């Protein structure tokens, strides 16, 4: 076993030696510490402050009791169920899709599920129009033959089931990604990354940074309040049991150095992102109990409305 350790350690030390040329973090750490050490006047807790604290606690409880889902988030909940009922595409299978919600001029909300990246062509796009709490779903591959496993050119629930099973045991997409790419190329529909050049990446991250700062500056609701609201929304929307709810683990980084780290603009609305993780059997990573995964919510920092909710089973992808 010592041989293994030496092999890995020495090989990785040599291969990652470029990291040794990077500047030390020492100056940045000390600068941040100096900022945090600015003395703060100690104050006695006044009656007014107690009153204010009680008000904050009451508002948290009130928000938690009456969770407000945006029209998009509510429609997505309805569409998810309709998708499973009509096509057998479960929440876990959505790990292979991007989901978007758009309000339409006729009052409906259109929810689209597009296969991720290389899987875009074979998985196609499911489109759900949600009106008055009801969803009508269609698939871009409706009418096509899905029989024949990965040889088929349209992949439905049978392939998705196989993909999940492979991913769960192997941790990669080797069994199906090459076929998906080949089929897409055959139809001149190969997936291309939208942001590919260094200039595009730079512009994208600069824009993202601006939006994060703008969202933070727009905040009117305390972060703690938004975390509570997000948790309640996750529990109700995904119908978690009390046992599952008790195991939800908050993934917001409370000690983030960047104050805007968890802020972003979504559809032009300033939002705070909250993530909860559910792992019901941590001693057995090979298992995946129902509803395990990551739940994320975008909370509008001005209104407290839950703008978007996403469940990611974490079963797809390359690990």
């Amino acid at each position: 076993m010592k041989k293994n350790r030496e092999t890995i350690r020495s090989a990785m030390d040599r291969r990652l030696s470029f990291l040794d040329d990077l500047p030390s973090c020492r100056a940045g750490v000390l600068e941040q510490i100096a900022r945090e050490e600015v003395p703060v006047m100690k104050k006695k807790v006044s009656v007014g402050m107690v009153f204010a604290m009680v008000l904050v606690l009451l508002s948290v409880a009130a928000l938690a009791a009456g969770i407000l889902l945006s029209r998009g988030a509510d429609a997505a909940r309805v569409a998810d169920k309709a998708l499973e009922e009509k096509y057998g595409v479960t929440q876990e299978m959505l790990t292979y899709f991007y989901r978007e919600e758009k309000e339409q001029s006729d009052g409906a909300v259109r929810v689209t599920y597009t296969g991720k990246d290389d899987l875009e062509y074979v998985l196609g796009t499911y489109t759900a129009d949600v009106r008055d709490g009801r969803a009508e779903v269609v698939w871009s591959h409706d009418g096509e033959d899905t029989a024949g496993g990965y040889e088929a050119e349209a992949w439905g629930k049978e392939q998705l089931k196989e993909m999940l099973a492979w991913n769960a045991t192997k941790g990669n997409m080797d069994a199906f990604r090459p076929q998906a790419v080949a089929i897409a190329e055959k139809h001149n529909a190969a997936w291309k990354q939208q942001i590919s050049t260094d200039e595009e990446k730079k512009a994208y991250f600069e824009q993202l940074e601006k939006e994060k700062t703008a969202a933070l500056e727009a905040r009117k609701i305390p972060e703690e309040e938004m975390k509570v609201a997000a948790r309640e929304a996750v529990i109700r929307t995904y119908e978690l049991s009390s046992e599952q709810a008790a195991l939800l683990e908050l993934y917001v980084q409370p000690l983030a150095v960047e104050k805007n780290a968890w802020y972003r603009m979504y559809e032009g609305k300033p939002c705070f992102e909250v993530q909860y993780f559910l792992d019901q059997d941590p001693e057995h990573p090979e298992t995946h109990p129902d509803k395990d995964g990551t739940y994320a919510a975008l909370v509008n920092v001005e209104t407290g409305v839950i703008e978007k909710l996403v469940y990611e089973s974490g079963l797809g992808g390359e690990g």
Partner: protein
Amino acid sequence: MERDQRREWLEEAIARWEKPILHLCFAYLGDTALAEDAVQETFLKAWRHYDRFRGEAGDKTWLMRIAMNTCKDQLKSAWFRNTDRSVTPDLLPEGSVPFEEQDDTVTRAVMSLPPKLREVTLLRWYQGLSLEEMVQVMRVPRSTVNYRLKKAKTMLQGSLEEWYDEEE
């Protein structure tokens, strides 16, 4: 703990552990900028919670635990934004120290493991932590650590010629 002593400890910790932690974070995250952020945040957290955690474990174990938790948080924040922050060993820069093809193969094989298996591999076989230290870092039972190590070893067998399968 006096402020000066805490400051002295921090300076020593950065000098001693910054590079190993940077290597660990990079191998886990696959992104230089994210890894640098994770290292800085690791030392800031250590500074802030020095009194609370000091003595619970050795410096190295404690810092590795903070670093791994920080890395996991960073990875989990990426998928929601639909940004590609998956580990991409193909983009590894050239090192300042000459390396052989086998070094490259080993590094890519480790970095391509699923996160939980990558974590145990890095802590055990790259950073040299003992099983007890890994239990402290990962906060999971020893049986879980053993299980993941075994699974990681199995997955690496196909990629690494120098892989030996003796038990601990």
